[in-house]
């Protein structure tokens, strides 16, 4: 356990070094969030009765999404890992007395967390000061905070576990390009990062909510903004736990099978 912890720390501290990148990323995210809210405002004015959630909830959702983008973006891939598989450098990693899956999992966690830590606070504070329906609305109940935190953790683990499946699949296909693009665009949409899931048509929504990607950012952000309440909170989180186990299981099976028959090309 200790070696994974120190591996986590190395990656985390390394991620914290990129402060200029974080600053410009923050500016980008802030503009993005503002534009997104202005866009939804136009739709809200067109017909408020078609709006599936309150405007405060939507603003909160958007700002959380921007603040914690680094935790839940599917399109963030570490090309180093892909390259190490295709070039055969993964052999060095295999020589180490750690399990490949665990090591890369910890790495994924650390990279995402370090990015998010640098960016989230200014965005959250700034958006908290914005006037009423456009800013971040904080829930009064401490229970909701706790639930959100737990659900965010589950969501993050789920996204990292999903990334692991894609990394492991490269052992079988060698060319990562195609899978990467396809999977990324599907998962992005299904996780509600293009438009929040409540805005999808009802029959599409029913299917999407059953799929694993709805268990990432969708659940914690909607719990926090008060869009998911009561018993739905528990059932959504149960779904998160379920999909997390499924993803980890698939990833580990893929890893085991890949490593049993791995051929390192070249010398």
């Amino acid at each position, binding site marked *: 356990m200790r070696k994974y912890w120190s591996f986590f720390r190395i990656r985390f501290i390394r991620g914290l070094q990129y402060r200029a990148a974080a600053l*410009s990323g923050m500016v980008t995210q802030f503009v993005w969030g503002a534009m997104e809210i*202005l866009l939804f405002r*136009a739709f809200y004015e067109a017909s408020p009765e078609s709006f599936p959630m309150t405007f405060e909830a939507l603003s909160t959702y958007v700002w959380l999404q921007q603040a914690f983008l680094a935790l839940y973006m599917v399109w963030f891939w570490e090309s180093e890992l892909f390259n190490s598989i295709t070039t055969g450098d993964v052999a060095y990693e295999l020589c180490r007395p750690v399990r490949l899956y665990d090591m890369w999992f910890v790495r994924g966690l650390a990279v995402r967390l370090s990015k998010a830590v640098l960016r989230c606070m200014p965005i959250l504070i700034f958006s908290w000061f914005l006037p009423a329906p456009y800013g971040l609305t904080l829930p009064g109940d401490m229970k909701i905070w706790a639930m959100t935190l737990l659900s965010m953790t589950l969501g993050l683990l789920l996204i990292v576990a999903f990334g692991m499946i894609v990394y492991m699949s490269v052992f079988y296909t060698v060319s990562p390009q*195609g899978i990467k*693009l396809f999977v990324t665009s599907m998962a992005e949409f299904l996780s509600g990062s*293009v438009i929040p899931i409540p805005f999808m048509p009802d029959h599409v929504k029913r299917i999407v909510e059953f799929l694993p990607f709805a268990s990432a950012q969708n659940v914690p952000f909607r719990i926090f903004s008060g869009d998911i309440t009561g018993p739905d909170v528990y059932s959504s989180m149960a779904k998160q736990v379920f999909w997390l186990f499924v993803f980890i299981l698939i990833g580990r099976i893929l890893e085991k099978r890949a490593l049993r028959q791995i051929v390192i090309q070249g010398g």
Partner: protein
Amino acid sequence: MNIVRLYVSFILMHLKSMMQHKVSFFMTLIGQFLISFNIFLGVYFMMTRFHEVNGFSYSEVLLCFSITLMAFTLAETIFRSLDTFESIIGNGEFDRILLRPKNSLFLVLCSKIDLTRFGRLLQAVVMLVYGILSSSINWTPLRCLLVALMILGGVCVFGAIYLIFACLCFFTLEGLEFMNVFTDGAREYGKYPIGIYGKTVLFICTYLVPFALFQYYPLLYLTGKSDNAWYSLLPLFSALFLIPAFLLWKFGLEHYQSTGS
């Protein structure tokens, strides 16, 4: 004429080199298509729920989306090298280009022509055709010309932004991520007519960075929401944005001192 022939042979060269990895080329093409298809799905779902936004119907929004997407994609294909200009400066490639007996900007543009973006262009074309057929606009030759002008104006505006972006690299020697706000951001939010974002955004996009000149105002005229015929000339004005960008390039070039290694 000579320059056109040179450019065409550069395109063919890039095409040939990409065809060496056919599978990867087509995969990227499909990937590009899928990524922007996501955005289309978002627009489609929003429009089926709300039916109209600021008086614009679904087909009019599609028209607007396709024009912006097409302009952006063409600009990205042509000006791709400027988007990654910091690497051209960083690895000394630009110093080599300066030694050649042709305009340096032209040679920089030739050094990278990204044809995989055509996956997205295909989608823009499909949406444009659908938008034209299903909208209630009375299509005269003049209106068709206006659509072409809007796309052209858009290419110029995006091109100018890429050029400014590259000029900054002369001084910073590295890329500035927040410039994405103007390129990717404009593509992302230019899917709807800019006017719907409110007065402040419209003001910025009219006087600071002229997105609205090739997108929003001509669209108002095209869809008959405004009778002001001057609006149809605005795309030409938006192309003037290239002039300050080009002057900045000249200025940057004069002050360029290689990276040294």
